[in-house]
C-alpha cells in the first residue's frame, strides 16, 4: 500500500498500491527507469522503503524480524544472473539450497528435478562460466526455485536472450503457472506479459493501471473500423462527415474510422455509405492492443 522509494530527491517508486493473489502470475510492465527493479528489491527486503507498507504472506516488508522470514519464502531471479562462474551448475544450486536450509535429500532431489526440467541435467558438472546466456538464465531460475518458494520474483528474465532461449524460459514460466506458483514478473516485453500474466500492472514510477491484459486493452478508447470499398468518392465521404463519428482517414479505397462502440456505430456507417452509392467490400474492427494501452499510459506520465 502506497509503497514509495526515494533516492535523495529522486522518487524511484511513487505510492504503488496493488495486491497479488496466491497462485497468480502478476506482471509489472514499464519502461527502463520506471521503478520495476526498485519495487522488486523492496518487496524482497533487499532495500528499505521510504514510506508505505507491503506484506508478503503475513509478513511485513521492512520489519527486521519479518525480512528474514520473507526471504525464506521467496525466490528471486535478478536482472543479472549473478552465478558463481567457477562453480559447477550443481554446486551453484547446492550452495543456495544449504543457505535455505534444505536437507541434503531435498537439495539432491530439487537440483535434479529443476535441472532436468530446464534441460541442464547433463551439464550439472560443468562450470557455470562455460554456459551460454540462456543456460545461465535457466540456472538462475533453478537457483531461485531450489527451496520451493511460495513467491517467485523475476526481474526481466528474458532480456538479452535469443528467441529460442526466451521461449524456453517463457515455457518454463507457463509450467510454473500451471503448478499455481505465485509469480511476480518484471518485464518490458509486452508479448511476454500478455502470454504469461494473469494480471498486469503498468508502472512508470507511479502505478498507472492494473488489470488483466484484456481489461487493459479495453481501457484504451479508439477502436477502429476499417471499411474496404470498391471506390471512395466525394459522396461517400460527405455522407460519413454528416455522421457524428470519430476521426476518419482515407487510404486509397479504404476508410478507417475511430469508433467508441463499433456495435452501435458500424451499422449507421455502413448504411450511410451504401445510401451514398458506395459499394462495401469488407468491414473489419481493429481492437486496441496491450501495446496501445501501454504506450498511452506511459505517454500520459511524461
Amino acid at each position, binding site marked *: 500500500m502506497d509503497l514509495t522509494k526515494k*533516492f535523495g530527491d529522486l522518487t524511484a517508486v511513487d505510492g504503488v498500491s496493488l495486491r497479488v493473489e496466491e497462485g497468480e502470475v502478476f506482471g509489472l510492465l514499464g519502461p527502463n527507469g520506471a521503478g520495476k527493479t526498485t519495487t522488486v*528489491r523492496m518487496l*524482497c527486503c*533487499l*532495500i*528499505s522503503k521510504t514510506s508505505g507498507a507491503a506484506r508478503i504472506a503475513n509478513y511485513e516488508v521492512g520489519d527486521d524480524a519479518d525480512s*528474514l*522470514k520473507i*526471504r*525464506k519464502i*521467496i525466490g*528471486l531471479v*535478478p536482472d*543479472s*544472473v*549473478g*552465478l*558463481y*562462474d*567457477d*562453480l559447477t551448475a550443481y*554446486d551453484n544450486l547446492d*550452495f*543456495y539450497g*544449504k*543457505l*535455505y*536450509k534444505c536437507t541434503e535429500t531435498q537439495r539432491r532431489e530439487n537440483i535434479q528435478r529443476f535441472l532436468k526440467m530446464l534441460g541442464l541435467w547433463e551439464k550439472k558438472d560443468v562450470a557455470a562460466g562455460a554456459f551460454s546466456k540462456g543456460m545461465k538464465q535457466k540456472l*538462475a531460475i533453478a*537457483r*531461485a526455485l531450489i527451496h520451493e518458494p511460495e513467491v517467485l520474483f523475476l526481474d526481466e528474465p528474458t532480456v538479452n536472450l535469443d528467441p529460442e532461449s526466451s521461449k524456453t524460459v517463457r515455457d518454463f514460466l507457463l509450467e510454473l503457472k500451471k503448478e499455481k506458483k505465485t509469480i511476480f514478473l518484471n518485464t518490458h516485453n509486452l508479448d511476454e506479459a500478455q502470454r504469461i500474466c494473469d494480471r498486469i500492472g503498468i508502472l512508470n514510477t507511479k502505478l498507472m493501471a492494473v488489470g488483466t491484459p484484456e481489461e487493459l486493452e479495453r481501457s484504451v478508447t479508439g477502436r477502429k473500423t476499417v471499411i474496404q470499398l470498391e471506390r471512395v468518392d466525394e459522396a461517400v465521404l460527405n455522407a460519413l462527415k454528416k455522421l457524428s463519428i470519430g476521426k476518419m482517414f482515407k487510404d486509397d479505397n479504404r476508410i478507417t474510422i475511430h469508433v467508441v462502440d463499433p456495435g452501435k456505430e458500424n451499422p449507421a456507417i455502413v448504411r450511410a455509405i451504401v445510401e451514398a452509392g458506395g459499394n462495401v467490400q469488407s468491414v473489419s474492427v481493429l481492437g486496441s492492443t496491450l501495446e496501445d494501452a501501454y504506450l498511452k499510459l506511459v505517454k500520459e506520465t511524461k
Partner: protein
Amino acid sequence: MNLGNSWIIAIKDLKVIIRKKTIRYTIIVLPLLISILFPLVIKFEGNKNGGIPAAVLPGLLNSFSFFFVIIAALLPTPIASYSIVGEKVEKSLEPLLATPTTDGEILLGKSIAAFLPTIIATYAGATIFMILIDNVTHSTLGYLYFPNWTIGVILLLLAPLAAVLSVQLNVIASARVSDVRAASQLGALMFLPFTAIYVAGEIGLISLDTNNLLIISAIVAALDVVLFRISTATFRRDEILTKWK
C-alpha cells in the same frame, strides 16, 4: 547470528578462491619465500667473516619473525578483494543478499574465507622458518632459538589481529571501488604500517621484543574494533545495492 550460514558462505568462497591461480600462488609462494629466504641469509652471512655474532642474532631473528605479521596483513587482500568485489563485479551479491542470511553472517563468512587460508599459510611458512632458523643458528647460539615467546605472540596474537585488520580494510575498500585490482591495491596499504614497524625494528628505533609486540597487538586489536564497526556499517544490503560503486 547463525554461524552455520557464515560457514556455508566461507566454504563456497574458499571453493571459488582455490580455483584462482594468482591467489593460490600468492598464498603459497609468499610465506614459503620468506620462510626460506631469511634462513638462507643467516646461513650465507654465517659463512662470511666469522658469521653473525650470537649477541646480534636474537634481535635480527625477532625482526625477521615480524615479517610473518606483514604476510598475515598482506595475504587477505587478494582473497577478500575477490570475495567481495569479485561478487560485486559478477553481480552475484544480489541473489546472495536475497537469501535468509543477515548482513553480519555474510560478512563473517567472507571474513572467514579470507582469514583461514591466510593463517594456515602464515603458520605453515612460520613453521618452516623456525625449523630452518634453528638449524642454521643452533651452532652459533648453542640452543634452539624457536619456539619462543616472541614468535608465540607474533603467531598467536599479532598475526591473526593483523589479518582481521586487513580483512576489515578490504571490506571498506570494496565499497568504494568497482574492480578487484583497485580493491587489492587499496587493501595492500596494510603493508605500510607493518613494514614501518619492521624497518623501525631493523634500524633500532624500537625493539621487537615480547613486551613491545604485546603493545602493538593491543593497538591493532583496538583498530580491529574500530574498523569492524565501520565495515559492518558499510556492508549493509541497502548500501551495497544502492550506493556501492
